[in-house]
Structure formats: structure tokens, C-alpha cells
């Protein structure tokens, strides 16, 4: 599905590697070596396929602090500001940027581009026994 190779869409692998780096770094800075759970927020406009990110994360995590960690992906819908209604509204899809209420084109994206590491879960006993 996302096998790396010429022409393969492997940008999820790049994202997984950065995610593992950031999560491991966050654990290390608090004195932990093992990450049990990773919570990420991924915007619809990021172009990331969740299954491909999961697959890449499982493939890239062995030998890192995130080995055996569960990746929890929260999808962030697209939100835009309507220049007429002056409201932040959610778009039902990524291919029609118009206000669902009044039909005005909505260029201003407020949410939906996220590639965010929200939190990690670590084992508190590990710190105590270290």
C-alpha cells in the first residue's frame, strides 16, 4: 500500500519518522525512555492518509522509544471563516470552499491543515524505578 520506492507515496513515512522523533524527544526530556501511546491530530487538508500513517508508524517505530506504542489519530475537519456571515464554519468536504450557510467563497482556512503531536502516554513506574 505505501511501500517505499520510485513513485510510491511515502510522505506518510516521513511524517511518521518526524512524529516518532518528536514523541521520543518529549519523553526523554521528562526522563522517560518508553512511549506507550501517541496522540496526533491530523487535518483533512494535510493530505495524509490515516491508514498509511498507521502503517508507516508501525514500520518505523521498532528500535525507537515508540516501539509497541499505540498511535491514536484524531481527524481535524476543515474550518473556514465566512467573510459574509463572519462565522467560523465547518466544511463537509475538501473540494468546495463555500460557506454552507450563505454560499460565499471562503478562502480563509482556520483549521484542517494540522499535523500535530498532542500528547504522549508514558509509564510512570518506569521513572520511579529508574
Amino acid at each position, binding site marked *: 500500500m505505501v511501500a517505499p520506492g520510485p*513513485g510510491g507515496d511515502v510522505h506518510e513515512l516521513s511524517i511518521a519518522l518526524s512524529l516518532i522523533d518528536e514523541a521520543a524527544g518529549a519523553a526523554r526530556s521528562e526522563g522517560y525512555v518508553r512511549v506507550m501511546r501517541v496522540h496526533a491530530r491530523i487535518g483533512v487538508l494535510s493530505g495524509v492518509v490515516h491508514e498509511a500513517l498507521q502503517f508507516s508508524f508501525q514500520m518505523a517505530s521498532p528500535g525507537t522509544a515508540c516501539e509497541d506504542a499505540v498511535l491514536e489519530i484524531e481527524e481535524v475537519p476543515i474550518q473556514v471563516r465566512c467573510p459574509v456571515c463572519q462565522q467560523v464554519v465547518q466544511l463537509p468536504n475538501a473540494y468546495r470552499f463555500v460557506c454552507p450557510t450563505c454560499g460565499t467563497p471562503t478562502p480563509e482556512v482556520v483549521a484542517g491543515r494540522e499535523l500535530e503531536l498532542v500528547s504522549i502516554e508514558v*509509564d510512570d513506574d518506569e521513572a520511579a524505578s529508574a
Partner: protein
Amino acid sequence: MMMKPRVLEVRTNILKQNDQLARQMRDDFARQGVLVCNLVSSPGSGKTELLTKTLADLHARYRVAAIVGDLATDCDAKRLATSGAPTRQIQTDGLCHLEADMVARVLSDWQLGPLDFLFIENVGNLVCPTSWDLGEDLRVLLTSVTEGEDKPLKYPTLINTADLVLVSKVDLAEAVGFDRSTLLANIQAVRPGVAVHEVSARSNVGFAAWIEYLEEQLRAKRSAASV
């Protein structure tokens, strides 16, 4: 052994390292007064052809250079070099997009001197380059008339980050039964208000307007910097 889970809030951008480097590069480019264009499109939309011609044209009056990302070959770099402008290649070995550190590495060991325009031709891919900031001023997305009218709707994520859309190969419009108004409407549906130019690198249609656009962007960047 019982595990005692503890949640650590992190709240960081996953691509933080890329973003930090891109910000630094953007600052450097601003100090140097160079306008940086990141060209993106699906494979075969005509990036290399348009860029070769653009470099040849600008080269006579400006200091220009180009970096090209290629999955596996140096075909594109060779074509760009025929323009006479300095060009460098990044062979990505299968990676589907360019990242900021790849561009920074090329620039760091390239004795270029002052530049007016730097072009970065991304790997041909209509999804993957979306989230990687390369420090560019302009993200220019090409969509050719031979690709049909529905591409913007099918691949909205990258086009939604574009500063300019170039409809390329317009000399072939009639031959392929191109529906111009539908494509223009679809572009505006996924990126309302984006500037659109129609060009052909072969027949020269719209080429002068594209060059003028670049020159205007360079002037605007420099006058903004001198305020």
C-alpha cells in the same frame, strides 16, 4: 507488573524541524532579496519545460538559479541546464517530495552569489509536497489542459496551498477537448481567489504575463523589505 500511565502534553507540530529550518531559510532569502518559487504539479504537467524557458528568458536580465527534485534520474536537470542558468539536482531516491533540509544542503555548498530568482522544481506529485514548507515566497501549481478539468477537485490539498495556478499546455486545449470554464471554476472551488495564468511554453501564449508576474512579485518583495 502494573503500569502507571501518565499523559504528557506536548502540543507541537510534527514537522517542527522542517518548519523551523524553512523559517530560517525564508529569513535568509528575505535578507538576500531573492524571490523563491516552489513549482508543484503532478508528473507530466510541464514544470521542466516551462522552467527551462523561464530560466532562459530571465537569465538575460537577472541572476537566476534552479534546484530540481527528481525521483531517480538527472533528465530534468539536464534539460534545465540548457537554459544557461546554474542548476542543481536533488535526487530523492523515491521520496515523493522535497524537504527543507534537502534544499538547504544544496544551497550551503553551492557558490551562487547574489540572486534575484531561485526556482525549486518539486518532485512531480499532486499530494505529497503539501505540508513541506521550503521557505518559498510563492507556491506555483501547474495543471495542464491534458489532465482534464477535475484534478483540482480530486487533489484539493496541494492546490489549497498554492499562491498561483498556471494552466499549462494551453496550445493543446482544442486537441484534447479542454473545457476551460469548468477547470477555472474547479480551481476557484478549492482555492477561492487564487490568481490563475494560462500559459504554453511551446507556443508562448501567456508566457510574457507569467514573466511579468514574477518580476512584479520580486519588486513587491524588495519594496516591502525596504519600508
